[in-house]
């Protein structure tokens, strides 16, 4: 390497040190406990969608009993949200869902596919977490489609397009405390199979213990852009960070690019301190087609919801930067 090249690489490392690709909105957090019009314990991970000029967040709210439910928040600018006065989805009281949602419904992800809005979420019971799928036309009533995995499985995200004629999803089955991201397929959204591992944990990295899908995959010319979360255990407890990877368009089990460093790591007070500190965890992102910006919504410290902004191109570029990018 020439001296000039070494200098450039050194300068670049200095410039990037301690910086996140994601820019935190100055008005964060955008939704916190005080914004919820009904009694609850905390608010965090939110799915996101945009219908016309109208932004919607389907937010996970933990009620005072300790179960998670979903509430709906509205916005005209994607930054300032008003939360509906009542929850829009609560644990089912009819079978077969009631048994498996007895401890709550968690971490929704919204995918618009062929004009229908699907919500993939975690059904939680004393049997463990498993994936469930619902659909909605109006975000006020939800039709449950099926329980679509066995326990222990979380972080399900439906692709916004069929791949080779089949529905596809990402999920995260657990093996002990370890978890990797898998891809599986379905002809009817109910029965899933042909599962293949897509992204694994990386030793000696920030995502060395667990990884899981965060926002539903975003289609780009280079592949499916996936914003995912990674966990590293430390003496002070786990740290949840967010990263990006690029999956092959035709075979999303194939990773074609993966950033070595996170795009967002807990740094701000509201990310460090809360019910579970040192957590940033996304369940949804919106691509603004006219600006090329991505608004990424994320739960912080399991206590509030924030928004971060990045250029889509910057996230794509980050996927293909090497190990020395940090």
């Amino acid at each position, binding site marked *: 390497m020439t001296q000039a090249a070494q200098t450039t690489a050194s300068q670049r490392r200095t410039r990037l040190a301690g910086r996140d690709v994601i820019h935190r909105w*100055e*008005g*964060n957090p955008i939704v916190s406990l005080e914004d919820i019009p009904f009694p609850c314990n905390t608010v965090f991970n939110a799915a996101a969608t945009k219908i016309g000029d109208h932004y919607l967040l389907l937010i996970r709210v933990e009620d005072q009993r300790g179960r998670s439910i979903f509430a709906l928040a509205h*916005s*005209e600018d994607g*930054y*300032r*949200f*008003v939360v509906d006065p009542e929850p829009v989805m609560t644990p089912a009281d009819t079978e077969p869902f009631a048994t498996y949602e007895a401890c709550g419904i968690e971490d929704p992800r919204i995918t618009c596919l062929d004009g229908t809005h699907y919500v993939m979420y975690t059904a939680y019971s004393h049997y463990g977490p498993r994936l469930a799928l619902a659909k909605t036309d109006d975000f006020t009533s939800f039709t449950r489609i099926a329980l679509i995995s066995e326990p222990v499985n979380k972080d399900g995200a439906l692709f916004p397009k069929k791949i080779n004629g089949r529905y596809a999803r990402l999920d995260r089955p657990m093996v002990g405390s370890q978890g990797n991201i898998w891809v599986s397929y379905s002809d009817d959204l109910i029965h899933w199979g042909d599962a293949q591992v897509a992204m694994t944990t990386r030793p000696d990295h920030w995502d060395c213990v667990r990884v899981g899908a965060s926002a539903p995959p975003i289609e780009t010319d280079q592949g499916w852009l996936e914003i995912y979360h990674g966990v590293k255990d430390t003496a002070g407890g786990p740290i949840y960070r967010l990263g990006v990877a690029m999956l092959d368009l035709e075979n999303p089990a194939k990773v074609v690019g993966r950033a070595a460093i996170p795009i967002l790591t807990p740094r701000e*007070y509201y990310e460090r301190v809360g019910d579970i500190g040192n957590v940033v965890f996304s369940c949804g992102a919106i691509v603004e087609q006219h600006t090329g910006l991505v608004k990424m919504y994320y739960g912080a410290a399991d206590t509030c919801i924030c928004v971060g902004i990045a250029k889509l191109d910057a996230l794509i570029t980050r996927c293909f930067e090497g190990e020395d990018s940090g």
Partner: protein
Amino acid sequence: MSTGQLELRSEVRCARVAERICWTREDAGNTYTGWINDTSRNEVVFITPRRDRPSPGEHIELTFGAGGRAPQHTAAEVLRTEPYDRYFSLIACKHAGLR
């Protein structure tokens, strides 16, 4: 206020980039939230959900730096309100001093 209507304030305004604020009604326990739009020496304009908005003449308490390590509280009187968008209102109020 930034709605394009006639600006009546004579003080120099300092625009704020969406700084968080909390406020409470006098003698009420509920806390409401919003974002500062701009401030001047004696006044502050903030954005809050329309359904929660206080009325002109109402006395409220503002909390700056809410959620941080050192929040500051100040009493204020609402001067006027205007729509911000479909869901939010702009609230102009006059400081009654830091507490």
